[in-house]
């Protein structure tokens, strides 16, 4: 074990040596994996020992074991960070100086990682003291570094110096700095100081170092040691250019022009490839722009490239990679570093870069060929990145113009050619591996996106120059060709696994958005092209019918529809899509609607969709996948009638039709009003009531269809005919229910599957209709509900063992009551209340004390889950009654007839409560069958049931707290069993892990106690016997409920863990509790005080208890003011005492 170093006393040599050996031994045994626990303990004690600096320096200087030196360096760092404030200024400087000297003196050491570590320790210490050192002190250190970088001590030292600056810059950059246990402001101040005073100097040092060695490298080759220095300097320069420059606030008002030419504001747009825009500001102009520095780096790279043109490996060697990265970063230079009045400055800068970069990417075909025959692709990829960087900082016109001075074509043409070449490579080699062409394609697509993405401030500013439009058109044609080719090739792929499919769909979507931008840039050409491609494929289908397999053509059509859909409209995401600007403005001169290219294209698609109405064509051609293409489904109701009737069992397609197509139609009233006039809509409604096939839709779709059809009634102007429409629509369902419930042999036939199927379908429809409650059709829906009340009760009896039907019945009632309750007149309310109570009683009599028996644990847990769902539905029913007191649209004002909602809900809860055992409120053990082979599915099931249970619990406590808060007086009248049950659940809820539930319980408690206090002070009974102590069956005195909760709450507040959000609600509950039970509170407080052994804690605690009830002029009134004061008091109290109460 490590001996601690006494202050100031220098340990003797022998001791140092023996400790060093111990450390060395530990390091090597960790490497050999022998006795590593003890070794780790040794190293840990080194790291944690007090003032280990002498020892560590000794190890660094003398140890032969590199790992030991590494550990010593990190121990210096840890100890210094820990003890920084107790070190003297000389100690601090001594440590930094030592590290720096160490790095410089051993620059040629072969163990690079030790050097790097010491260098980074020096950087971290330097940062730690940055704000306390004087300028002169910093200069001393930096002078030493500068001397090294100039190169007077040789190449190795020069490299070490650069290396140190790299560490230093990365320490000061917020995203890469190491934690020091200091606030953010410290790091921010360091960052600012470095950026303002040193960053540019460092950059110039690096630049000078690179320049100084460049000549030697150009002469000799990549093997000379100078290459290391050069690579390091280039890396440092790149790192500095990547710095997140903050606009200089003092000069901002004068200097920064947010709208300076070329700089685009949409830099945050999501990108697949990284591109950081560098904006160092005007101060850097001399270093970066005017010094001819860019020219040097471009020509340096060009010279080396020329020299090593034969060696394939060279493109990937570090110096080449760093140089290219630096050049790419220069492309993204923007902002006030360029003179704001001088547009040519940036242009010249970019041109200079581009003239170097052009050799990497032009001519595209030759380069692609070279890569395919083995040349490294890294250079062309960097070229693509450079184009992306340029596209990010300039507008499309300027972008295109750049190249014109050195080539006969514009940059857009080059971009288009380059991308075409990439796509051609992709088409010839269809492999699943991600090759360079994929990466290049993504970067180039981003480039197009950066150029074409509309800037939302000004519309239509993404116009391209004429030859740019041609370039886009050519490229788009090739893209379409390539997508079609890959579609037809993949048509017969059978097993695209679901996960992979999902991933590829989302990347496909991103790609389609970029394609659409390119396509829209040349709509005049691309829309007719797409029309032609589309009709060609359709014609092919007709010709080949019965002769050849249509699948590849179908897949091509599918892919075309996706592309067309994206070009014609942006992804709507729940909103009505708008026509994109470019499509609107580019065809402005075409007046006739019929000849409008977009119209022609749309019409041809609609025509194609219409052909699905022809049964013969349908059988031959229309597969379900094709019908899923969104753009087709945008169209007519007839198509949807057909999809619903003719594709039995295709759930996805039916869901699309019901939810996206039909449901979207009824969202706006003016669409509804034209909808209800359509013959096809009436046909749909007729089919809904008559057609067998529609009974086979699955439940969710069934519900949604009914809801949609009823909602469309809002388009009928006359209220009477709207109600009649709903009656006609739903009449078949109510009639069936009434007839069924009146059948004499109901008991016998009811359980037959062919009775259950139509019944469940109609119940789903009724539920859907009930959800479509609107003032206009309220009458008809209200009648609908009243007419099925008796049948529902009959069915509830008959199907008591058929849990799925029971649940549908309950949900149907719940949704109906929820939709109607606000409109009901008092007489109707009374009838609904009576019905609901009978329903509750019936349900309860069937289920109380019932145990399911099955051999399968799986079925048992299913049965439990269904119980939760039923109970949740019943609670929802009661909750919707609560809303009657808050929202009431009924016309009558006859108070005498009105129902006491609170009493009803308590009665309901009284019926339901016995079904909710405390066991049910706890999370039951769900994971019976861990050995199940489908482990993940099992977990998903468990999660789903947990979600169900927690939503049930939430529903329960929400209802409970609402009732206690709004109607505390009724709770006092509950019989003691029911009352205790309610409080038992509150007790449970207070210990629940969900803060919101605890919060609801606290609110309930507050309401209860406040009610009791107010009542008793005005001479009433309040909670009466519930609040007074009672004798339990064994004869012991039991506290009254309020005393029990006072104890519980104090225990919770003082000793248990809880979220800080709960302190205020807990204080709100505590205040009335204390007022009700002042005697007990005093007693409890005294007990706690007496328990303290430590006298100072004792006095602190007793004064704290005194303050809680006396500070801030707290009085005994339960008003807002007092609650607030008490909250403050409790907060102060907890801060004061909780710390020692919990630990002592």
């Amino acid at each position, binding site marked *: 074990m490590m001996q601690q170093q006494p202050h100031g006393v220098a340990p003797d040599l022998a001791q140092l040596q023996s400790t060093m050996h111990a450390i060395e031994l530990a390091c090597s045994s960790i490497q050999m994996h022998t006795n590593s626990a003890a070794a780790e303990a040794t190293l840990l004690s080194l790291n944690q020992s007090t003032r280990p600096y002498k020892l560590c320096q000794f190890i660094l200087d003398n140890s032969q074991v590199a790992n030991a030196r590494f550990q010593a360096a990190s121990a210096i760092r840890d100890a210094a960070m820990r003890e920084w404030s107790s070190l003297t200024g000389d100690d601090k400087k001594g440590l930094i100086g030592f590290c720096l000297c160490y790095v410089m003196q051993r620059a040629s050491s072969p163990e690079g990682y030790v050097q790097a570590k010491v260098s980074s320790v020096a950087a971290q210490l330097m940062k730690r003291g940055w704000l306390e050192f004087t300028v002169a002190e910093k200069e001393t250190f930096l002078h030493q570094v500068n001397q090294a970088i100039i190169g007077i001590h040789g190449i190795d030292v020069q490299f070490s110096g650069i290396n140190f600056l790299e560490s230093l810059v990365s320490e000061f950059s917020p995203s890469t700095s190491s934690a020091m246990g200091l606030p953010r402001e410290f790091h921010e101040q360091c960052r600012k100081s470095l950026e303002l005073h040193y960053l540019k100097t460092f950059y110039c040092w690096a630049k000078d170092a690179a320049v100084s060695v460049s000549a030697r490298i150009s002469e000799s080759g990549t093997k000379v040691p100078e290459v290391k220095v050069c690579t390091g300097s280039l890396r440092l320069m790149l790192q500095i250019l990547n710095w997140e420059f903050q606009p200089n606030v003092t000069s901002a008002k004068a200097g920064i022009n947010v709208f300076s030419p070329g700089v685009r504001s949409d830099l945050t747009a999501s990108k697949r490839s990284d591109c950081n825009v560098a904006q160092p500001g005007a101060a850097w102009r001399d270093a970066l722009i005017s010094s001819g520095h860019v020219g040097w780096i471009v020509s340096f790279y060009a010279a080396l490239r020329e020299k090593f043109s034969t060696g394939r490996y060279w493109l990937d060697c570090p110096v080449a990679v760093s140089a290219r990265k630096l050049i790419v970063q220069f492309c993204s230079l923007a902002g006030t570093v360029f003179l704001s009045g001088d547009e040519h400055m940036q242009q010249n800068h970019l041109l200079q870069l581009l003239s170097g970069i052009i050799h990497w990417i032009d001519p595209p075909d030759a380069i692609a060929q070279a890569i395919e025959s083995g040349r490294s692709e890294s250079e062309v990829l960097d070229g693509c990145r450079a184009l992306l960087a340029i596209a990010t900082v300039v507008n499309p016109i300027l972008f295109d113009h750049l190249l014109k001075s050195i080539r006969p074509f514009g940059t857009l043409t080059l971009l288009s050619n380059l991308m075409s070449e990439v796509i051609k490579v992709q088409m010839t080699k269809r492999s699943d591996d991600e090759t360079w062409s994929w990466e290049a394609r993504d970067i180039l697509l981003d480039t197009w996106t950066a150029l074409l993405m509309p800037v939302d401030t000004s519309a239509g500013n993404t116009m391209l120059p004429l030859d740019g439009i041609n370039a886009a058109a050519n490229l788009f044609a090739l893209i379409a060709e390539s997508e079609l080719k890959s579609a037809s090739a993949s048509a017969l792929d059978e097993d695209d696994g679901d996960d992979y499919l999902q991933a590829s769909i989302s990347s496909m979507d991103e790609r389609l958005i970029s394609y659409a931008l390119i396509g829209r840039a040349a709509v005049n050409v691309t829309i007719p092209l797409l029309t032609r491609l589309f009709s060609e494929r359709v014609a092919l289908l007709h010709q080949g019918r019965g002769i050849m397999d249509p699948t590849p053509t179908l897949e091509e059509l599918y892919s075309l529809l996706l592309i067309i859909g994206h070009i014609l409209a942006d992804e709507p995401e729940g909103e009505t899509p708008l026509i994109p600007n470019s499509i609107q403005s580019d065809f402005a001169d075409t007046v006739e609607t019929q000849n409008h290219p977009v119209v022609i294209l749309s019409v041809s698609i609609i025509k194609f969709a219409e052909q699905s109405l022809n049964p013969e064509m349908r059988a031959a051609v229309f597969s379900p996948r094709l019908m899923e293409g969104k753009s087709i489904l945008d169209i007519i109701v007839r198509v949807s009638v057909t999809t619903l009737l003719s594709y*039995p*069992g295709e759930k996805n397609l039916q869901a699309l039709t019901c939810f996206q197509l039909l449901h979207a139609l009824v969202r706006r009233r003016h669409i509804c009003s034209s909808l209800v006039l359509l013959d096809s809509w009436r046909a749909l409604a007729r089919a809904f009531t008559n057609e067998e096939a529609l009974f086979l839709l699955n439940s969710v779709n069934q519900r949604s269809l009914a809801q949609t059809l009823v909602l469309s009634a809002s388009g009928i102007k006359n209220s009477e005919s709207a109600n009649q429409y709903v009656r006609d629509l739903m009449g078949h369902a109510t009639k069936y229910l009434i007839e069924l419930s009146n059948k004499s042999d109901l008991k016998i036939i009811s359980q*037959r599957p062919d009775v259950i199927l139509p019944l469940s379908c109609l119940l789903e429809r009724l539920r859907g209709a009930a959800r479509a409650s609107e003032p206009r059709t309220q009458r008809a829906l209200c009648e609908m509900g009243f007419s099925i009340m008796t049948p529902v009760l009959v069915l509830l009896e008959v199907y008591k063992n058929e849990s799925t039907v029971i649940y549908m019945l309950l949900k149907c009632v719940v949704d109906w009551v929820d939709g109607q309750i606000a409109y009901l007149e008092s007489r109707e309310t009374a009838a609904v209340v009576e019905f609901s109570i009978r329903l509750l009683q019936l349900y309860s009599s069937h289920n109380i004390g019932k145990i399911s028996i*099955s*051999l399968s644990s799986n079925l048992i847990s*299913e049965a439990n889950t269904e119980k939760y769902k039923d109970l949740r539905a019943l609670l929802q029913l009661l909750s919707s009654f609560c809303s009657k007191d808050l929202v009431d649209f009924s016309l009558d004002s006859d108070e005498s007839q009105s129902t006491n909602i609170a009493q009803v809900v308590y009665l309901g809860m009284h019926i339901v409560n016995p079904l909710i055992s405390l066991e049910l409120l706890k999370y039951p053990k769900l994971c019976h069958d861990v050995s199940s082979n489908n482990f993940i599915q099992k977990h998903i099931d468990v999660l789903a049931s947990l979600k169900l249970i927690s939503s049930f619990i939430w529903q329960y406590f929400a209802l409970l707290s609402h009732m206690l808060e709004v109607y505390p007086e009724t709770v006092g009248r509950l019989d003691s069993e029911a009352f205790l049950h309610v409080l038992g659940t509150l007790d449970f809820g207070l210990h629940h892990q969900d803060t919101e539930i605890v919060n609801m319980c606290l609110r309930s408690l507050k309401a209860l106690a406040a009610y009791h206090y107010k009542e008793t002070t005005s001479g009433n009974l309040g909670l009466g016997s519930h609040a007074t102590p009672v004798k339990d069956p064994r004869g012991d005195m039991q506290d009254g409920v309020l005393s029990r909760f006072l104890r519980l709450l104090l225990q919770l507040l003082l000793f248990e863990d809880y979220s800080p959000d709960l302190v205020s609600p807990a204080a709100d509950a505590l205040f009335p509790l204390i007022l009700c039970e002042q005697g007990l509170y005093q007693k409890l407080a005294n007990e706690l005080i007496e328990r303290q052994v430590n006298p100072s804690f004792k006095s602190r605690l007793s004064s704290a208890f005194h303050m809680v009830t006396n500070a801030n002029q707290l009085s005994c009134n339960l008003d807002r003011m007092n609650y607030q004061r008490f909250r403050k008091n409790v907060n102060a109290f907890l801060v004061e005492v909780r710390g020692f109460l919990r630990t002592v």
Partner: protein
Amino acid sequence: MSDEEHQFESKADAGASKTYPQQAGTIRKNGYIVIKNRPCKVVEVSTSKTGKHGHAKCHFVAIDIFNGKKLEDIVPSSHNCDVPHVNRVDYQLIDISEDGFVSLLTDNGNTKDDLRLPSDEALLTQIKDGFGEGKDLVVSVMAAMGEEQICALKDVGPK
């Protein structure tokens, strides 16, 4: 199973049919289905497609309602499946005989004595204990495809 097996009988006799055809797409989780000639309860339904332009198929995972065994089936969603007629009747439990049979009281006052207690120990004790404590017990008997079994137990308490 072939289609001949469930021809529609005359109306008066319809209640006696053991299974009914129903489109696979309409069978939901918690519904019933016949797999390998056994009545089952569906615990999981998923749909998949054969090829990109093929039709949907339903994949059912179901549990035999009598013996608790797991069974699976794949059916094109537009085709019909057999759905068992599962009938449940409540009886008052009068007696448990020593040879493992129960004696049940039917609605019309007769007794039904042909039903065995479940063989599983845990289930057996649940019933025996309840009966032993002198509770008034009602048992639900589930019948499907010619088999019968006690499926639930309810304490109606002393009236």
